[in-house]
């Protein structure tokens, strides 16, 4: 007690202001362990994320492995010109954006609904069962998952067997171009719905319970509580995840596309990545692949910056 009193009663001393360098050195000495841990993370980003960016130079070169990155000849914007003047460029752009917009609208909203519904479930056994069942497809490998999807949609698959009960002639869904984006998006929903809802469930658990109680006392019914308390509570999470999704608007992974498509549906299924896979990777033209990827990522970053700015203006929520 005395000690406390003494400390409190001590006269204030005007310490000389430390320079930035001094503060850093002091802080480093004090927390060097934390700096060491941070260094590991930073090295990872430097080595695996920033240093390889130098390799983007191959997008402007005629890269030949034996000549190496710097020995290959510069060709300027040749690959970009070739890509933009490709007969299929407009179609690829349309398909990539269609699949991504549908994924954004359907694939990103359904996990929110699932999380909201699960949040309202009172029986924990039922809740856990639903969660497990919806998470499970996420852990199935993509190749197997696509095999299951094609099997279900095949001529004598589950869907057609159900349709036949109603006298509908079998439809080979995987051969109809118009169905392809739906198959792609809904198979994604099936595989990742539960897993993607985890982050929303986590956000839901952080909402102050007193807000629900207050809303109930104010006379809100369950739906109104969801509308006025739950959704505003997880809105920052929703917006942040949407922004990140917008940041990959020009990218669709080629693996799933090439596992699901065939020549009959190419006009709706072919996206930038599958095109690059066929034209660039299979033919060993890495420069061409790098050019298309660079273009995609530049557009992705632009979209992210624009939407982040818009979001900051409208809702005050942004990534930075």
């Amino acid at each position, binding site marked *: 007690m005395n000690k406390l009193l003494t400390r409190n009663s001590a006269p204030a001393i005007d310490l000389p202001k430390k320079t930035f360098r001094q503060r850093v050195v002091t802080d480093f000495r004090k927390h060097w362990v934390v700096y060491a841990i941070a260094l590991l993370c930073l090295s990872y980003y430097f080595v695996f994320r920033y240093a390889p960016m130098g390799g983007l130079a191959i997008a402007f070169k*005629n*890269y*030949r*492995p*034996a*000549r*190496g990155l710097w020995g290959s000849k510069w060709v300027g914007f040749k690959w970009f010109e*070739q890509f933009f003047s*490709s*007969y*299929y460029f407009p179609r690829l752009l349309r398909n990539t954006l269609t699949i991504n917009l549908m994924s954004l609208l359907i694939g990103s909203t359904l996990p929110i609904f699932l999380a909201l519904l699960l949040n309202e479930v009172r029986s924990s056994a039922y809740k856990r069962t639903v969660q497990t069942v919806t998470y499970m497809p996420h852990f199935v490998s993509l190749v197997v998952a696509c095999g299951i999807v*094609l099997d279900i949609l*095949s*001529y004598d698959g589950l869907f057609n067997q159900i349709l036949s009960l109603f006298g509908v002639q*079998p439809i*080979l869904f*995987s*051969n*109809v*171009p118009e169905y392809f984006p739906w198959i792609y998006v809904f198979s994604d929903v099936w595989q990742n719905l539960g897993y993607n809802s985890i982050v929303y469930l986590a956000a839901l658990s952080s909402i102050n319970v007193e807000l629900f109680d207050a809303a109930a006392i104010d006379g809100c019914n369950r739906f109104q509580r969801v509308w006025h308390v739950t959704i505003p509570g997880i809105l920052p999470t929703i917006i942040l995840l949407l922004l990140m999704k917008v940041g990959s608007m020009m990218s669709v992974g080629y693996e799933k596309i090439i596992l699901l498509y*065939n*020549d*009959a549906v*190419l*006009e709706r299924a*072919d996206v930038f990545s599958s095109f690059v896979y*066929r*034209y660039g*990777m*299979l*033919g*060993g*033209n*890495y*420069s061409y692949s790098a050019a298309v990827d660079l273009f995609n990522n530049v557009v992705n970053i632009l979209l992210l910056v624009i939407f982040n700015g818009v979001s900051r203006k409208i809702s005050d929520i942004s990534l930075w």
Partner: protein
Amino acid sequence: MKKRLVGLLLCVAMLCTLIAPVAVAEEPTTITWLHQSWNVTGLDNWYDALWVKELETRLNVDFEFISVNSTDNYDNVVNLNIAGGDYPDIISWNWSNYSGGIEAAIEDGLVTPFTMAELQEKVPNYYNLIAGNEYINRALTLSDGTIAAFCHVEESTARNAYSGYAIRKDWLDRLNLAVPTTIDELHEVLVAFKTQDANGNGDPNDEIPMSDRSSLNLMKELAAAWGLVYNYPQLDPVTGEVTYWTEVNDGQNFRDFTLTMRKWYAEGLIDPSFTSNTQTEINSNVTSDIQGFWHTNTNRFPGYYTLLQDTVAPYADSSAVKLEPLPRFPFQYAAEGTEAKRYTMATNLKNYVAAQEANVITSTAVEGGKVDKILELFNYMYSEEGTTLISWGVEGVSFEYAADDSKVWKEVVLNNEGGLSSDTVMQYCIPTRGEFPKIMDLKAWMTVDCAHPDGQRELDFNYGADKDLIIPAILLTGEDSETYNMIMNDVNTAIAETFLGVVIGNKDESAIDELFVTLDKMGIEEAMEIYGNVYAAYLEKEIVK
């Protein structure tokens, strides 16, 4: 004292005998070889194969295979190895995957070329093959007359005639139908299969008269009856000029072929799932006894018979099950009064070597002073003795000579758990695969991949077909290659989706006319001109000796 002296002398004598061979024997030359692993049951690594061990002993070399798992993307592995700058001594690869091809790889200092004089001196066995066959000569010599590719060489291109088709003869017999000999007869037969309960199980609706895989193996073969070589530049059946299959006869043949397939599909004669079928579905249809006519390779007959005889028994006499290989169907547009040709589209029937799929000696081997040893090794691999070793294994172990001096497999190869299959043979030798510098021994291959009598009949049909449409593989380089590939990538995509779309009814017939306009816009004429010029140069190419 005497005893001690004798003991000492004996010890010295023993030491001398131990040391002597060590001092005399030359150290084996270590050769690093980047070569894709094959997915062979029971053979994890090349080192385990008998012929590799034997080759090491006979040539005093020590192979260090850079093992690449067959599931990895081999192209990426090769590129990474090359980009690393520390090349293996030998690289086996499809060099069309190197930007600019094998000539570019030479220009970049990666691959070592040899003059014919050098080959004559150091690899005479390979030289004799090249000098003695104009196809091999034209295919392998580069623009400056040198050769860098060491490929597997076909003893006869008959080995490339493994792809054909077969029909259920027992179904034909049940319906009292003759084996179809024309496209029209084939159509009638398929209709009968569809409507007359061809498998005799009481259900008239379960038959799939004709099936195909998503890679369209069967349709590609059938296209030859319209004088078309699916997705390859070809010679026009009438004019003999270089053209593309969509351009033959102003597109009329392509149109007729596409619309015929469309009609058959609409009539329910073609498996509705063919666009996504793999060999698994084909096998499953065979097992279910519902498939009448499909594509077969010569090595698949035993497997199909096993599937059929195991499962058809419940409602048919399984011993009566019979597959009938069919010859190519006659040309649809033969002039009246002339005998129609039976064309094949198997482009490999004019290729004695796959010039791009080659083993090359890298500059690392030159720097390491190993070139002579590697050339000696290759020369042995192309020799008669080497061919026997690689194609039959070791005498007394995997094969022996019969009374008529022909080679026959030993019991250990014939009677084992897997039977005489490609996988079991490959523990000893590699008669069924190329990719190494070697001669493909036709007989050894036939004993494994064409042993069934029906397979042999199919081989005769396939090889006996007319090869007038086929252009042997030619090499496009530099700007030609770049322009051609860019145009043809777009062209092939457009054709594939229109062809399939029209056949399955997603698109109407007018899509074919639209396709022709699109192909013109894409520059198909320019691409064919490039190809035609390179082919003309190929024909005029001087035979280098």
